[in-house]
């Protein structure tokens, strides 16, 4: 089993900048394996996929499309064309909101999201609800930062058409019982959008087992370069959706006044794609699989336990995590009493410790902390 020391040595920036980097929830640092894969792509394979008839372009296409298959296997999608490349989770969520939400919501329908959602899984739904006359309802958390069964079942109703839920909260680290939420939502006839950005670096995802209709994540939170994300959607749903962005490579025939669109997945991938990002994402998956999720979870458990123990000793500090260990991932939120988070972050920064310092990361969630 690879040790945490060995893993640490894979990240050049930690040594180069002498960092204690505790902000992987914002973006992870990149291991040398990912950096090398990108360098190798540009040195030996760079071309525009799907475009040229020469071998270099064909090889670039193969690399690009093979990574799609790799991602499908990684999250256990049934079909490779259910994997759509995007810029990040935010773009994936906007694609769903605009292409699915706008076309399927009617006046008085309901969209249900949790109060833990990141702005990217909140603001697009505000817009779509305003435009369609639907209502946006929130599921609230209890004092242990968890969604109770009662709360879930009182908010998801027969009027609910879309439920959006984060797998792991970026603020409290709460792991939501997404599988049960999906099951209940399906019983009520709603489709479920899962934001997996904070879960994918920490736990094995099986979209078929979850029965998620949509599952989105950003590559950069799982060791890949910035600017590459994934949208998974069930094939029959994606097939019935209209394209989000129009342009090259997503078309079938273009006439003067009309266009027919390419089939999945190209229908949702207009224009030249971030192939470097895709290559890096492929290498990041190899890296995660090399370490293994079991090992990742074991190391995280040790680190979280140690951190919580030590932080609990500080009487000037308030911790915001669920007491139920099995429902808590590796985000640790805390407040130094009477000191603004920005000031804390500046002082830690002077010791080369990088932490996130925001109270407005999710405005709605902040309201809970404040009250």
């Amino acid at each position, binding site marked *: 089993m690879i040790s945490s020391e060995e893993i640490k040595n894979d990240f050049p920036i930690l040594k180069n900048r002498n960092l204690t980097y505790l902000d992987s929830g914002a973006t992870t640092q990149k291991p040398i394996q990912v950096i090398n894969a990108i360098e190798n792509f540009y040195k030996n394979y760079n071309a525009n996929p799907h475009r040229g008839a020469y071998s270099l372009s064909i090889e670039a296409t193969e690399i690009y499309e093979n990574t799609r298959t790799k991602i499908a296997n990684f999250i256990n999608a049934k079909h490779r064309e259910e994997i759509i490349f995007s810029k990040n989770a935010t773009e994936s969520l906007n694609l769903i909101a605009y292409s699915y939400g706008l076309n399927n919501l009617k006046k008085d329908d309901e969209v249900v999201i949790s109060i833990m959602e990141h702005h990217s899984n909140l603001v697009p739904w505000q817009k779509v609800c305003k435009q369609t006359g639907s209502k946006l309802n929130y599921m609230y958390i209890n004092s242990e930062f968890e969604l109770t069964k009662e709360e879930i079942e009182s908010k998801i109703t027969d009027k609910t058409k879309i439920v959006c839920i984060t797998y792991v909260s970026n603020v409290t680290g709460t792991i939501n019982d997404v599988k049960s939420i999906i099951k209940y939502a399906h019983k009520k006839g709603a489709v479920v959008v899962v934001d997996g950005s904070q879960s994918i670096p920490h736990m094995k995802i099986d979209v078929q087992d979850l029965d998620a209709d949509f599952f989105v994540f950003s590559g950069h939170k799982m060791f890949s370069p910035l600017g590459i994300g994934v949208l998974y959607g069930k094939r029959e749903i994606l097939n019935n959706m209209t394209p989000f962005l129009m342009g090259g490579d997503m078309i079938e025939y273009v006439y003067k006044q009309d266009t027919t669109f390419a089939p999945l997945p190209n229908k949702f991938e207009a224009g030249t794609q971030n192939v470097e990002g895709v290559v890096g994402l492929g290498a990041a998956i190899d890296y995660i699989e090399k370490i293994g999720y079991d090992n990742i979870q074991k190391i995280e458990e040790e680190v979280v336990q140690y951190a919580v123990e030590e932080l609990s000793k500080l009487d000037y500090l308030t911790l915001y995590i669920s007491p139920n260990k099995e429902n808590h991932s590796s985000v640790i939120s805390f407040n130094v009493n009477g*000191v*603004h*988070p*920005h*000031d804390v*972050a*500046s*002082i830690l*920064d*002077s010791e080369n410790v990088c932490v996130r*310092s*925001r*109270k*407005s990361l999710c*405005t709605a969630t*902040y309201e809970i902390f404040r009250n």
Partner: protein
Amino acid sequence: MEDLTDVYNELIMEHSMNSYNKRKLEKADFSEMGHNPNCGDEITLELKMNGNIIEDMAFSGHGCAISQASTSIMIDTLKGKTIEEAKDIIKTFIEMIKRETTDEEELKKLEDAIAFRNVSNMPARVKCALLAWHTMEDMLKNFNKN
């Protein structure tokens, strides 16, 4: 990074923790809200004029030590000044934080606000120090229109 005590110095800590300028004016002529969407800091400045002179100022809201102290010290600095003088001081403060001026003579007019000069070494905190000053700048622009 520069020594932190250069930034979190006594004057700044004093103003951030318990500012006498954090209050409500009884009869404010103008008020303006400033907001930093990146960190959630939010202040409201209130202004009472006597002709062309800033007779009284106060603020409310919440934010980090740097933004709170910067607001309070700005109020001390601008009170009793004419609008034109205030605009000139604000311009100099912004230039100091952005390292566009280091002229000691020029910086003298900032009075206590010169305590923030080391914030220019902390790019992540520049917007905290500037929030109140930009808000005041906006308010004075509107004032001219009226």
